[in-house]
């Protein structure tokens, strides 16, 4: 079977036919730098030329992190990650799939959430010291972290700490945000896994609930959730009538308006650009402003950074393998070189992936760096 007509049309839109085969993508791709086999250039060329059944069964179809680094360098303006998404959708429709991490438990969890009349018990994390409300201008979208917190108990990471810190920060500004009782997974992972059908169901449910809440601002701690809402929901026709902000943007605004005073950080900080926040959404400055505010002597830039940044090594709970670990180890090494004590993250997935890598005792001794969310760090610095 060759790629069907419809798919060919869509591939055209990614501009893939304009590929010069220059190989710049492969030279900057984090996976290619550690893998002996993976090459975006080769994969793209094969997608255009080869019998697609072979291609659709290819392990490396699922190795791309959709981190978008290649697109920053591509001289032909090719939308490579969209091409990956299209091919994965086609693969799924033909009955092929990648290797899901955690035996696909998280994908199942996400698909279960497409059920319309679900009655979740997902707000148990909201302890008595946190103030939320049913109405108001602000809504805090927590995403799947309540599930991650249980799922990853063995890593002893507290993914909900970021959420609790965020609510505490909002409370300090007199904001008691709405937290939806039946919020769904944003659909990010299913979309990038090529399960577009189930992604749309989740998007629809979230869009309906959020629009019904009449909130004016939706706040996120998760870079993936924000990128789904801002880019994917829009693209797929689910409009959200509210302003969408990452917590770092909210904090930055409060600094600009002189409403937020921060003390110097007790620890040396550095910052990991999440691919979703940086390359997908162009949010580079706000988190840096927050971390550097009144803190220039306790902040070190992690190299490479911004557009060139190295991502956390896995995306969409797919193909977590030796390449992922190599990327993560490399990034931790770079973080260690800054002599920072804390690697600041702005996405729960970065937190999970780096914490997982640090389970390796040798690595942990070699790179004794702690992973903390930006909201948690900022809350501790608030005056």
């Amino acid at each position, binding site marked *: 079977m060759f790629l069907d007509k419809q798919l060919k049309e869509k591939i055209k839109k990614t501009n893939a036919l304009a590929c010069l085969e220059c190989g710049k993508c492969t030279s900057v791709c984090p996976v290619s730098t550690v893998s002996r086999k993976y090459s975006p250039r080769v994969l793209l060329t094969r997608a255009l030329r080869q019998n697609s059944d072979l291609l659709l069964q290819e392990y490396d179809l699922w190795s791309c992190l959709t981190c978008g680094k290649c697109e920053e360098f591509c001289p032909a303006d090719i939308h490579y990650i969209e091409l990956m998404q299209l091919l994965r959708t086609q693969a799924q429709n033909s009955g092929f799939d990648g290797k*899901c991490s955690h*035996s696909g*438990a998280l994908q*199942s969890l996400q*698909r279960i959430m497409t059920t319309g009349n679900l009655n*979740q018990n997902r707000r*148990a994390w909201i302890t008595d010291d946190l103030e939320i409300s049913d109405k108001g201008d602000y809504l805090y979208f927590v995403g799947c972290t309540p599930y991650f917190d249980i799922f990853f108990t063995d890593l002893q990471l507290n993914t909900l700490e970021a959420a609790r810190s965020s609510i505490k920060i909002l409370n300090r500004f007199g904001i008691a945000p709405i937290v939806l009782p039946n919020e769904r997974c944003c659909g990010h992972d299913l979309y990038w896994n090529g399960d577009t059908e*189930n992604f749309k169901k989740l998007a629809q449910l979230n869009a309906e609930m959020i629009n019904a809440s009449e909130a004016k601002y939706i706040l996120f701690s998760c870079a993936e959730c924000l990128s789904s809402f801002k880019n994917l929901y829009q693209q797929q026709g689910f409009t959200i009538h509210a302003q969408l902000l990452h917590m770092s943007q909210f904090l930055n605004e409060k600094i600009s308006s002189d409403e937020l005073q921060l003390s110097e950080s007790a620890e040396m900080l550095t910052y990991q650009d999440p691919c979703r926040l940086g390359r997908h959404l162009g949010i580079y400055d706000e988190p840096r402003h927050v971390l550097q505010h009144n803190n220039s002597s306790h902040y070190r830039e992690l190299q490479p950074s911004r557009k060139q940044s190295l991502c956390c090594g896995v995306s969409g709970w797919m193909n977590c393998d030796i390449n992922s670990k190599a990327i993560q180890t490399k990034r931790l090494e770079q973080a260690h070189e800054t002599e920072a004590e804390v690697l600041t993250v702005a996405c729960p997935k970065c937190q999970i992936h780096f914490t997982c890598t640090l389970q390796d005792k040798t690595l942990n001794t070699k790179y004794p760096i702690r992973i903390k969310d930006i909201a948690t760090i900022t809350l501790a610095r608030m005056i």
Partner: protein
Amino acid sequence: MENFEPKIVTFACNWCSYPAADAAGVGRMQYSSNIRIIRVMCAGRINSSFVFKAFELGADGVLVTGCHIEDCHYLFGAKQTVHNYDKIEKLVLMLGIEPERIRYEQISAAEAPKFARVINEFVADVKKIGPSKLKTTPAKSSNS
């Protein structure tokens, strides 16, 4: 709800609860035919993905069975089951799936009557609360 015949996925370990199921059959003990047994070598292999997948594919209830802690043929397997099940239960309840729809029991190879009793009780409990509310479109591919 009178005629509701629930679909129950039962995971059983090769060395204890599965032989117990066998013995129950050989001993002609009556137990409900609503269960589909999936045999695993050790119940320690069962993690949340097994249970979620069963629910995703339309199971009305999931029963996890294995050896008593000290009987596990892989030494630490049954302990792992207890650990995994604790997480599974929390996640399933967070999803809003009724507590009646999951259960974990340790059943030794010699406890055929217990196997039959647990099955009958579980099926009766699930019958009481009716069919699963989950409506999902499973992935088209088989291995996710």
